[in-house]
């Protein structure tokens, strides 16, 4: 059985206001608000002392304390003395404890409202700083590679093998599925158009060239960005949170050589292999459509593909795969190394690594395509 919390104001003299509390003061939606008392006090400027009287209070918890705290704050600000003798002894002690350490006024984070232009400026400066950071990271990576070439880079060979395994053999199922289906889809779309001209056989050309030259590398790159790039960022981010990267630095080991270099090497080596494999799977996907739907002879389809796909196409595809591997590894490692020291920062790092990698892949695809166009290959 609980009694409703009640609040009563008495004014025995012009200078004193008595605040009488009764009932159960437990946290809940219908506790009286201190605002009512504050308004009363504001309306009576002669009041110099508030006497708190809570002998009728039954059960109480933080509900009572928050009420008293707010009332006390208000009184202190208006230089009104608070007489708390009538409070339950426990509440009095807790109240004294809560006010024992003065509030640190300069520690609070201030929400600053900034104008649109100021925001735009900050964002733009941030963007350029981001580009600068990326270039610095890229430079460090190049230095690490040079040290590797000259045999001075310090990293664990075992790490390299483990990462290569995770970024190759373990990625085969998902790469198979995606590239097979992409080949299949390309063939379907091409078939509908080419059938109009009775030129079904050119589905083999379409699928072959598209996959080998471009699509296999892009699809593998995107799969690896989500799968491995995100994982790199999360690993390095967690290492940052656990001070493991600090521990490397104080030991004089460069995180760039020890952590980034093996990851970059691993992806640069495995991505072209995965691309090659994705080529085969994609062509097989197209072949399924060609043979089953368009009734092209298997040998004929194979011959057409072999005729259409030149060595240049394969070279460009594998080169793209190599570049994408480096992009995915760098994006993942950079975001991981920039990670803040909290769990949510690790999540952000992983997300941002995937986004950065995909943007990088698409941008460099455009660049490679334009350059190839100029060179006429």
């Amino acid at each position, binding site marked *: 059985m609980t009694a409703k919390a009640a609040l009563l104001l008495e004014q025995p003299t012009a200078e004193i206001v008595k605040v009488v509390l009764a009932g159960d003061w437990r946290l809940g939606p219908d506790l009286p608000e201190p605002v009512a008392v504050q308004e009363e006090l504001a309306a009576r400027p002669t009041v110099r002392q508030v006497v708190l009287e809570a002998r009728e209070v039954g059960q109480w918890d933080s509900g009572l304390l928050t009420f008293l705290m707010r009332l006390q704050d208000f009184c202190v600000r208006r230089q009104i003395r608070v007489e708390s003798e009538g409070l339950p002894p426990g509440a009095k002690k807790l109240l004294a404890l809560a006010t024992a350490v003065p509030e640190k006024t300069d520690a609070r984070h201030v929400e600053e409202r900034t104008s649109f232009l100021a925001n735009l400026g900050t964002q733009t400066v941030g963007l350029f700083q981001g580009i600068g950071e990326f270039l610095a990271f890229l430079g460090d990576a190049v230095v690490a590679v040079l040290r590797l070439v000259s045999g001075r880079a*310090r990293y664990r060979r075992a790490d390299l093998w483990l990462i290569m395994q995770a970024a190759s053999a373990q990625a085969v199922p998902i790469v198979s599925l995606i590239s097979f289906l992409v080949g299949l889809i390309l063939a379907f779309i091409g078939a509908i158009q080419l059938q109009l001209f009775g030129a079904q056989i050119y589905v083999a050309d379409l699928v072959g060239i598209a996959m080998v030259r471009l699509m296999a590398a892009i699809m593998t790159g995107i799969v690896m960005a989500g799968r491995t790039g995100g994982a790199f960022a999360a690993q390095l981010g967690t*290492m940052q949170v656990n001070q493991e990267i*600090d521990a*490397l630095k*104080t030991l004089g080991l460069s995180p760039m050589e020890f952590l980034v270099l093996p990851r970059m090497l691993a992806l640069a080596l495995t991505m072209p292999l995965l691309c090659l494999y994705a080529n085969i799977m994609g062509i097989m996907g197209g072949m399924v459509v060609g043979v089953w739907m368009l009734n092209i002879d298997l040998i004929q389809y194979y011959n057409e593909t072999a005729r259409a796909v030149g060595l240049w196409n394969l070279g460009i595809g594998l080169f793209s795969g190599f570049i994408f591997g480096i992009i995915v590894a760098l994006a993942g490692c950079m975001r991981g190394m920039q990670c803040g020291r909290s769990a949510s920062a690790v999540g952000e790092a992983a997300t941002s690594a995937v986004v950065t990698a995909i943007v990088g892949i698409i941008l460099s695809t455009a660049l490679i395509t334009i350059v190839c166009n100029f060179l006429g290959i």
Partner: protein
Amino acid sequence: MAYGDYVLMRDLNFTINRGDIFIIMGGSGCGKSTLMTILVGLKAPARGKVYYGEVDFWGADQASRDQLMRRAGVMYQSGALWSSMTLAENVALPLETYTNLRPDQIREVVRLKLALVGLAGFEEFYPAEISGGMQKRAGIARAMALDPEILFFDEPSAGLDPVSARRLDDLILELNDSLGTTMVVVTHELPSIFAIGSNGVFLDVSRRTQTATGNPRQLLAETQDPALRQFLTRGEK
């Protein structure tokens, strides 16, 4: 010492002598750990200099700082063991990197260091498989791998039970005594401070500067500063 515009501590000036067990003490949030990150070369001070002997630590380039830090070992608050390696590999990495020892010699040294911190037999465990206290001790084993001249400890006994904390203090004393290692310990555990400290500095969070430096026991006996007295006596009368 500052983060951006926020100045954490100013006007710090103290000397750590060779062979000291030097305590960096102060309330939570006063910048003890930040001071340590400056001393070990992870964060540059906003202003001022750190000298190792005659060498201006932050005035030198990264390579010379690495060179200096090779004579030091650092134990981080949570151990900061490399989670993808076993304890043995963790302790072995500094040895593999900076010495020409044969693999079997390294194995022996690793066994010794782990045995010194009471972790004999845990060589093949991964950091995630052992308790927090054990991770800390393994962190010490790794910090001592290269027999450093200076060992830094960030809150060594925080989160440990009293007996383990005491054993850790004994370990620090013993290493200091038998190897002559200089110890720099960040802590606010009073029993540790009095048990091991031979020198120290007190960072006052409200005044944002150091208010005392010297042997903690002596500081307790002689201090007139209410904030320091309150800290060293837990505020008891």
